[in-house]
């Protein structure tokens, strides 16, 4: 289906089912129950899952396939966001032109940055991309304030021209919409003590992610994707096989920049604001973490990594000391306090510490990320019943 083989069609359908049913899957616990804090089925978190999923899928096309480690991809996300914001200010609050322009502008910007940065490889490439991103960040904060809003960032204002939209009534605020359907509007459905929220913005972003994921599968299975993997494997042989590796890496760079732009555009479509901190190099570091954590060079890995990091960020930073005491309340007081004291540094505001530790452990022991971990566990089970071990007809990159 969709020009994919069976295995990849199944993968795509699985991801489609997961994203479409996310409001149910992420809300397994009834409201008001003790476990409700693990629910993640509310709109802005679900939006972040899929948007960062897109960002990581794109980053993976560059890093996972070619091995070029960019430390500046947040710049493309930021540029995409600014471009989308200006579309909303000048043209219309409809998200379609905003998103389209964010992809195009980020693509052009990544073409420029990539064209220069890709003259070098290895650590030099990483530092060049980092330098570009930091420059963009610094400029967005200072000189480019008329375009970027500087420290305050940008929001759509009532008096913006928006030539395609009718004038808003005084006091009304401009809202992002898809042909009139507002991004922030939600349909809530309560079943017993469960409450499920279906948010328009989330579904717009989810469809964008499914398209992105589908494109990534196509790229992975195409001759182009194979050439990118060949670059990572042996650039020398590439060149002596009559292939010019530069346009391949540049194309990969631009594609991943466009993915980042799409993610940036979607962010603006969801919350109609943008600030320069989106381009800071820690934001670039975050997408690196997501991709590695999930499994660089695999299809599903970046999506998993993005979901996991955003989930942890949200849930773990909500847990506080009181909640910990509730959890361990069944233990004798001394042990309870000791356990709480031991766990406390890793949760709440300390969740970055947990993230850093997990990341280090993954790089050290599981360079293939969660996907490799899953494969190892699957292999353990397979060893018990070897009959299920049928070789696949052809070799494809791991999922």
């Amino acid at each position, binding site marked *: 289906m969709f020009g994919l083989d069976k295995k990849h069609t199944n993968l795509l359908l699985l991801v489609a089912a997961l994203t479409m049913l996310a409001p149910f899957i992420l809300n397994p616990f009834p409201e008001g129950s003790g476990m409700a804090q693990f629910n993640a089925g509310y709109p802005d978190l679900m939006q972040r899952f899929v948007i960062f999923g897109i960002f990581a899928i794109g980053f993976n096309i560059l890093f996972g396939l070619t091995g070029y480690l960019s430390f500046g991809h947040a710049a493309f996300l930021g540029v995409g966001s600014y471009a989308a914001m200006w579309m909303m200010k000048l043209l219309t609050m409809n998200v379609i032109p905003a998103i389209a322009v964010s992809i195009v502008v980020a693509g052009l910007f990544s073409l420029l940055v990539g064209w220069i940065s890709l003259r070098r490889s290895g650590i030099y490439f990483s530092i060049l991309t980092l330098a570009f991103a930091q*420059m963009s960040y610094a400029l967005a904060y200072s000189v480019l304030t008329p375009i970027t809003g500087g420290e305050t960032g940008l929001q759509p204002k009532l008096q913006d021209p928006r030539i395609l939209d009718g004038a808003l009534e005084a006091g009304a605020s401009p809202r992002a919409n898809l042909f009139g359907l507002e991004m922030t509007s939600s349909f809530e459905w309560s079943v017993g003590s469960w409450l499920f929220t279906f948010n328009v913005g989330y579904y717009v972003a989810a469809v964008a992610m499914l398209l992105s994921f589908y494109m990534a599968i196509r790229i992975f299975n195409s001759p182009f994707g194979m050439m990118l993997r060949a670059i990572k494997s042996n650039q020398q042989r590439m060149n002596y096989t009559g292939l010019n590796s530069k346009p391949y890496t540049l194309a990969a760079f631009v594609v991943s920049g466009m993915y980042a732009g799409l993610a940036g555009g979607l962010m603006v479509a969801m919350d109609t604001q943008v600030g320069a901190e989106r381009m800071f190099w820690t934001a670039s570091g975050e997408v690196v973490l997501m991709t590695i954590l999930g499994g660089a060079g695999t299809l599903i890995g970046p999506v998993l990594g993005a979901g996991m990091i955003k989930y942890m960020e949200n849930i773990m930073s909500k847990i506080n000391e009181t909640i910990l005491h509730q959890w361990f309340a069944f233990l004798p007081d001394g042990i309870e306090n000791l356990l709480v004291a031991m766990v406390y540094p890793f949760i709440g505001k300390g969740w970055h510490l947990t993230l850093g530790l997990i*990341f280090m452990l993954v790089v*050290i022991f599981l360079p293939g990320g969660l996907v490799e971990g899953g494969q190892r566990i699957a292999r353990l089970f397979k060893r018990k019943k070897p009959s299920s071990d049928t070789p696949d007809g052809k070799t494809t990159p791991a999922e």
Partner: protein
Amino acid sequence: MEAIILQILNGLDKGSAYALIALGLTLIFGTLGVVNFAHGALFMIGAFCAVTLSRLLQLSHTVIDDSQTDFLGNPLKVEVPYLYDIFGQSTGDAIIDWAVPISILFAIPVMIAIGVAMERGLIKHFYKRPHADQILVTFGLAIVLQEIIKYYYGANPIPTPAPDAFRGSFDFGAALGFDPNVIIYPYWRLVYFAFAALIIGGVFAFLQFTTFGMVVRAGMADRETVQLLGINIDKRFTLMFGLAAAVAGLAGVMYTPINSPNYHMGMDFLVLSFVVVVVGGMGSLPGAVLAGFLLGILESFASMREVLEFLPGLNQIIIYLVAIIILLTRPRGLMGRKGVMEE
């Protein structure tokens, strides 16, 4: 002329910090071939050594002072540092006042221990792995280190003053025969520059004149050959890592009065220091020092009002801009050896 001198002076303290961090980075890269993204964290930990020591020195207990009373006539409770009990009040005060310089003694063993532990416990296992993996694992380590510091010291900058004797400013202009009050420069920054020069000189002398240094230099030039000679180079490289950590740490200790330390100062400096290393030439020690000072001074010139009027925002991007130009026109950096990671 005055303006030029002033900008050069202004660039010196940042330049010193860049140079010290970059020196350690390039030492590690040159000897161990490792790209250490956690080096900024070492600078930050050094700064927090100073914070820790000055807090330790001020540890106090409560004493009821009968000679003073509060407004109700009750005897006043006062906090008395333990140091007063040991050394008496005036010596105790002096020690507390000099907390930052004293921290040097405290930081050296701590930083060497941290550096050696890092190398033995983590970095060692990454010598044979790709540079990308080294960047990633040290990046993770940097996050962990800064989060630990944040947990214990909070997210806000902690003011850590210089000794009273260095709190004023020196009128450079008057000393050089210009009008007074034109070129004034805080004493502590002069101290910082002198300190950096001393450390840099010390490291170079150490590498130049000791057997240890000779082996390390030989190892930087050609690791395999030195190993063939039967010299246990790994052990020396471990110590080298400790030394690089100590240099970064001391740079951090002495930097605390200039900028109040916070948990993310390491990352802020790291990014720039990497750029400095690249501009100076990967694996070139003199290159790192030269580029550190050069970029520090360049940055301060770019912050002049006259320049900013003409090219707004230049001070924010000058270092990156120079790095991009250098990397594209002279990939091995100002003083890098030919063929060292030029690709």
